């Protein structure tokens, strides 16, 4: 985590949100964001992530009792125009009646920054976001990717204490999204501002986040580094939302998971009548039949390029997804052995 960054430290304290019609968008949540950290709010639509972002921005007021603090200062009742936050919207919300340069300079103009200084800052940001030469274009003459960069440049121009991004890549097509994601990552690292990033895309969250807050139905499901939420998900929802996961339900006897296709030693596995266990597809190794404790029959093989997805039935109560190297020869109907390291079996709390 980048601890020596710029910008403000953010704390939200018991911030919930109930809308006028009685819908509960966010359960009271408390969250600390360190100075210079990039925090990703991740979850499916309707999980409350955008509401949390808007509370931090000052576009929504938290329910009574909720507090928003920047560097320890209570900002709860301060309107957005005086919070000094930079915001990038999903629709970009670029001003159509202004040129690219005027869009980027707008916040500085409002602040009364002299013309020459504004021009210098615009030149600096245009170079940083790779849109040199577009300064005098109108917004409707820009491509989606260019708009995204202008929106980012405009938000950063005012040197905000906090940068807030609401699904900034969602409106772009897949190839462009991947390219801009790594560009954005480089930029956020270079800027080092406290950043809060909302997305429903777990790949974005993994690449960009110092920490990820996984949200579900208006509540925080888990907070952790990308590695933590990937390797040690707290529950089944997180396990399935982040990456691909096999969820296996089977009894444990004396530290050994008992599956229809064989027995697997499991770390920290106390005896249980029925346990929920997560196995990531890439932690399963395909071997020749009979060589390992677990065996099954290949259902299907999908060649993806850099790897292949093999579905094996008979090993567990449900077919197992296995990510195997693209060099392995396997055909539907083959009998294979599966080897899984004991620490790759992740015990999850049973769902009620």
């Amino acid at each position, binding site marked *: 985590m980048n601890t020596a960054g710029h910008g403000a430290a953010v704390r939200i304290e018991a911030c919930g949100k109930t809308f006028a019609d009685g819908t509960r968008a966010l359960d009271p949540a408390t969250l600390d964001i360190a100075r210079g950290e990039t925090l990703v709010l991740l979850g499916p639509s309707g999980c409350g992530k955008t509401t949390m972002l808007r509370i931090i*921005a000052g*576009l929504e007021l938290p329910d009574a009792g909720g507090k928003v603090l920047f560097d320890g200062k209570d900002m709860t009742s301060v*309107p*957005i*125009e*005086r919070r*000094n*936050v*930079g*915001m990038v*919207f*999903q*629709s*970009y*919300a*670029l*001003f*159509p*009646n202004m040129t690219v340069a005027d869009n980027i300079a*707008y*916040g500085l103009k*409002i*602040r009364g920054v002299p013309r020459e200084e504004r021009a210098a800052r615009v030149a600096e940001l245009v170079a940083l976001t790779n849109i040199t030469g577009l300064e005098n274009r109108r917004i409707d003459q820009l491509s989606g990717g260019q708009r995204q960069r202008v929106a980012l440049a*405009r*938000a950063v121009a*005012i040197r905000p204490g906090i940068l*807030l991004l609401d699904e900034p890549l969602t409106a772009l097509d897949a190839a462009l999204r991947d390219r801009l994601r790594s560009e954005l990552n480089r930029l956020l690292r270079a800027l080092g501002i406290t950043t809060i990033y909302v997305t429903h895309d777990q790949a974005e969250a993994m690449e960009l986040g110092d920490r990820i807050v996984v949200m579900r139905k208006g509540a925080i499901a888990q907070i952790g580094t990308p590695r933590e939420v990937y390797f040690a998900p707290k529950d089944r929802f997180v396990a399935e939302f982040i990456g691909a996961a096999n969820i296996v339900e089977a009894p444990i006897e004396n530290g050994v998971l008992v599956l229809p296709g064989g027995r697997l030693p499991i770390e920290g596995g106390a005896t249980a009548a029925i346990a929920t266990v997560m196995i990531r597809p890439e932690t399963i190794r395909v071997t020749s039949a009979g060589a390992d404790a677990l065996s099954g029959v290949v259902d299907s093989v999908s060649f993806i390029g850099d790897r292949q997805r093999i579905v094996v039935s008979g090993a567990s109560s449900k077919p197992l997804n296995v990510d195997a190297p693209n060099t392995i020869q396997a055909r539907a109907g083959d009998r294979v052995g599966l080897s899984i390291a004991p620490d790759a079996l992740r015990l999850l709390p049973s769902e009620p």
Partner: protein
Amino acid sequence: MSQKSFVWLCLLPLAVVTTAFFLLPMARLVVAGAEGPHGLAGYLAILTEGRYRATLINTVLLAAATTIVTLIVATIAGMFLQRHRFPGRAVLIAMLTFPLAFPGVVVGFMIILLAGRQGLIGDLSNRMFGEKFVFAYSIYGLFLGYLYFSIPRVILTIMAAVQKLDVGLEEAARSLGASPWAVQRDVVLPALAPAFVASGAIAFATAMGAFGTAFTLATNIDVLPMLIYTEFTLAANFATSAALSVGLGLITWFILALARTFSGSAVAAAG
């Protein structure tokens, strides 16, 4: 029959109606304007003859004032109505659009009931100051009447435009530090400009040509439609009334054309 000739056949009724009831009378009108004792110079009389010129200027000023005041009132009201939900909102919107259902005569009648000799305002002022305020039959009464039937048309257009406005634009401006006033000035009003031009042009054209209200009220006022009427029916001055008609049409058409090039969208005259 080929598909193309079938399409042309379908357009035939429109062609007949347009020729019979629009193109031919228009051509006749233009010719009639030049058939007076002064020939083509009859058209010049619109500008040179003091009474006609004054009326022309009067009418344009009245239409312009109506347009500007309507835009101000309707923008504020339309923005408020679109952005706020409150009990009775639907009823209020229905009431505001009510004048659309009235012909100009009824609007004039209502102005008389309000500010005429037996009107409400005159009654009240008589009791309070011992003097009757009567302005229904002046240009102010006419202005009020025009305002009354212009506001609904404009309000509906503005409300539709406000609805289409991306709330994100305003939020983005605020996040950059813009005060509520700056947001209106820099973001909202520029975004509504096409709607202003379109609905303003309609208000202007309507006010230029409105006859019913003027006919009911205008004992002391000369506006162009009234002048055409009196020249035509009372003075039997066909040439002048035709020339005035062509003049009125040209000015209104010019304003609408101007608005169309600005806004790019279709602007239809009404009234």
